[in-house]
Structure formats: C-alpha cells, structure tokens
C-alpha cells in the first residue's frame, strides 16, 4: 500500500508538475494539480467518507468510539516514541514510551487513556517531522489522492509511517484491511464538526487548508517554537489619525 501511494504520487508529480499556475505561493508550485486532486478528494469525502463517518457517529456509542480512538492513538504513541529517539530527544521519548506502556497494560491494550487522565500530554511525532528535524526542508506542497494534504518530504516519509501504522501490528491481511478501514472512519468522525466549521468559514477552502497545514507542520517540526518569522509589513494607513469607520 505504501509503495503504491508513493509511486502514484511521484508519478503524478512528474507528469503533472508542469501545469503549475502562474500567481501563487512559492510553497505551492503545483497549485493547479493540487487543486484538482483536492476537488477529487472532496468528492470522495462527500460521497463516501463523510456519510459513513456520520453513520458511525450516530450508531456507535460514545464510549466505544473513545476506546477506538484511544486504541489507535496508543499505537501512534509508540511510533511517536520511536521518532523522538530518532530525533535525539531522550526525555520526551521516555515520556511517550511510558505513556504507551501504561496505556497498553493498565489501560487494557490502549482502550483507556489512563496516562492522559493522569495529565501526561500526548505528542504526535511522525517520520516527516523526524526528517524535518534532521534538516530536510518540506519541499513543495502536495495534495495526495485520498490521503490529503502533504509535502514532498512528508510523502516520502509516509513509506516509513505506513510500516508502523496500526494495521502493521496485525498479521492477517483481512485484519489489516479491517483495522485500516476502522481507523479511517473513526478519524474522519472525530473531525466531522471541525470540517463543518471550516466549510462554514472558508472563502477558499483549498487555501485555508493549505496554509494551515504548512504552518502546522512547520510548528510540529520545531515543537511549537519555530524560529521567529518577521511579521509581514503592514501597508501604511492613510488617515490613520482619523477614527476608524464605524
């Protein structure tokens, strides 16, 4: 699966890379291509993912959904711990490792987030962030089919992330598929109200998500303290001594 997606993305990048639109962000030279994948994803989301996730939220009781979320997040914690080791951050690595151990044992295989209840915060780390920490720049913004917003760096990192995905903890192919489907649905369900808000307020949803994604990834690489970027200059206000129009 990972190899397939990566190859597909690389191919599309190669073939369609030329159709970049003229004006736009320097981070997004493939805006034309990205927008078409974005609208494809939106179509799939509206036709399949959103209805299924909505149904899941209606039918499955809250405590079960929480347990499912906890279960996946717990497996994610283990991968975060590995990445923290790779990033040479021993203290958070140990904390996330402890989190995983507590939840996997006392939290019954991760169904309960007892570490979180005890005040241990979760840090999500993936291999893209590790590459960033190693000094690899994000490269151009890339919208992947189905998988959504990414960058060239993060797309390459997916190969490693998939190896550690919850499905990888299971042996049988059938189980792996089931786990992946459940993970996708439960993740989508968690973001139902957030995406509704974005739908409401976005003037240009593509741009809102792109800008948000890029700064968030940058933030994650620097653990919330990115090197300060100068505030963009404000145009001098004409008649700024006048009271603002009411």
């Amino acid at each position, binding site marked *: 699966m990972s190899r397939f997606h990566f190859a597909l993305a690389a191919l599309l990048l190669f073939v369609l890379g030329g159709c970049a639109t003229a004006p736009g962000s320097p981070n997004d030279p493939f805006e034309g291509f990205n927008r078409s994948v974005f609208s494809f994803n939106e179509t799939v989301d509206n036709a399949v993912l959103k209805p299924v996730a909505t149904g899941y939220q209606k039918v499955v009781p809250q405590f079960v959904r929480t347990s499912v979320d906890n279960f996946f997040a717990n497996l994610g914690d283990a991968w975060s711990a590995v990445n923290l080791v790779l990033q040479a951050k021993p203290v958070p690595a140990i904390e996330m490792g402890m989190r995983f151990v507590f939840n996997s044992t006392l939290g019954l295989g991760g169904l309960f987030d007892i570490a979180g209840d005890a005040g241990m915060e979760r840090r999500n780390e993936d291999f893209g962030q590790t590459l960033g920490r190693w000094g690899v720049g994000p490269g151009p913004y890339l919208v992947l089919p189905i998988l959504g917003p990414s960058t060239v760096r993060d797309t390459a990192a997916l190969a490693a992330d998939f190896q550690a995905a919850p499905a990888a903890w299971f042996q049988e192919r059938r189980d792996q598929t089931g786990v992946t489907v459940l993970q996708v649905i439960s993740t989508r369900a968690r973001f139902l109200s957030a995406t509704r808000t974005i739908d409401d307020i976005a003037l240009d949803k593509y741009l809102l998500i792109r800008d948000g994604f890029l700064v968030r990834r940058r933030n994650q690489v620097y653990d919330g303290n990115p090197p300060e970027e100068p505030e963009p200059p404000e145009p001098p206000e004409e008649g700024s001594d006048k009271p603002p*129009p009411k």
Partner: protein
Amino acid sequence: MFRTLAIALTLGTTLSLAQAETTPDAFVMTLSTEVIDAVKADKAIQAGDVSRIRTLVDTKVLPNVNLQRMVVKSVGQPWRSATPEQQKRLTEEFKTYLINTYAGALTQVRDQTVKLRPVRAGSNANEVVIGTDVVNKGEPIQLDYRLEKAGDAWKIYDFNVLGLWATDSFRSQFARDLSGGGVDALIARLSEKNKQIAGTKN
C-alpha cells in the same frame, strides 16, 4: 484578582494607578477564561445556537480587538487605493466575517482549559505575542495572540490557531478576489459568505 482589585479601588484604598495596569498575559488569561466559561455556562451555545455565540463574541471579544488594524493587515496594499466608502463597507463585512469565524471556532469548545506558554516579547514593548495552549485531552491546541498596548489596556490585532495567523490566512484567501475584481469583488464575496453563514442554522 480583578474583583479584589475592583473592590479595593471602590473602597478608596490607596492603590496607585500603576498597579491597575494589566499585564498582557493576565489580559489574555482573563479574556480566554471568561469566554470559555461563558460558553460552558450557556446550554444554548453548546446546543449550537450560533446567534448566541455571535452575541458573545460581539460583546466580550470584539471590544478587545483592534478591528481596523486587522482589516488593513488582511487586505494589504489594495486597502490604500480603496475609497473611504469602500473601506467602510469592507470593514463592516470583515467585522461580521471575523465574528462568524471566531464563533465557528467557539462551537468546538467543550471542557478545555487554557494554559499560558512563556511570553515571547515582540519587537517593542508596546507589541507582544502571547502564546496559549488550549488543553483538553491529548495534544494541546496552540492559540496565540498579537497584542498592542492601548493606554492601560491591551488590544488583540491578530491571533493564530495551530500556528496559522488569522490575517495571513485572510490575506491569502482575499488575494484572488482582490486581484480579479478589486475591493468591490472582495466586499461582494464577504457579504455573500456572511449571508450564507447566517442562513445555516447550525
């Protein structure tokens, strides 16, 4: 703390004015706590009554925002070439849009608490960035504010969610309309969006 201060002042004790000056982090904490508490206390808001949320934003948050500065920052250069009439209409639509945006974010409030992150001073003493983490379970959500000094008080002139500054996001989204049809196109777009949001009940 503020109640004690207010009582102390009304009692006519000898508190100097300097002590009444609010620090920027205290200002952010008070404001965020007040807003979150108001959301938590209001059943109608939690049930998704958007008009109630808008009223809350309008009365509690907006007085602490330098709207003029936000709109100028979000529009960028084209603001200067706009006529006063256009500027007035744009500011009106922007204000409604900002309320809608903030109200949309507030519908996500459940049982969060707000924690301050260490203060990072801005380029001068009159402008600072205050970082907060909105903590629920799991990963905290970053919510930062740019503040400017306004007399003894502070005013918000930008905020960011998960690292994305509002005015940056607005400028990016406004650019297409501005380059296509100028300020009037942007006013039309915002007005249309605001009507659309007003139309959706939830």
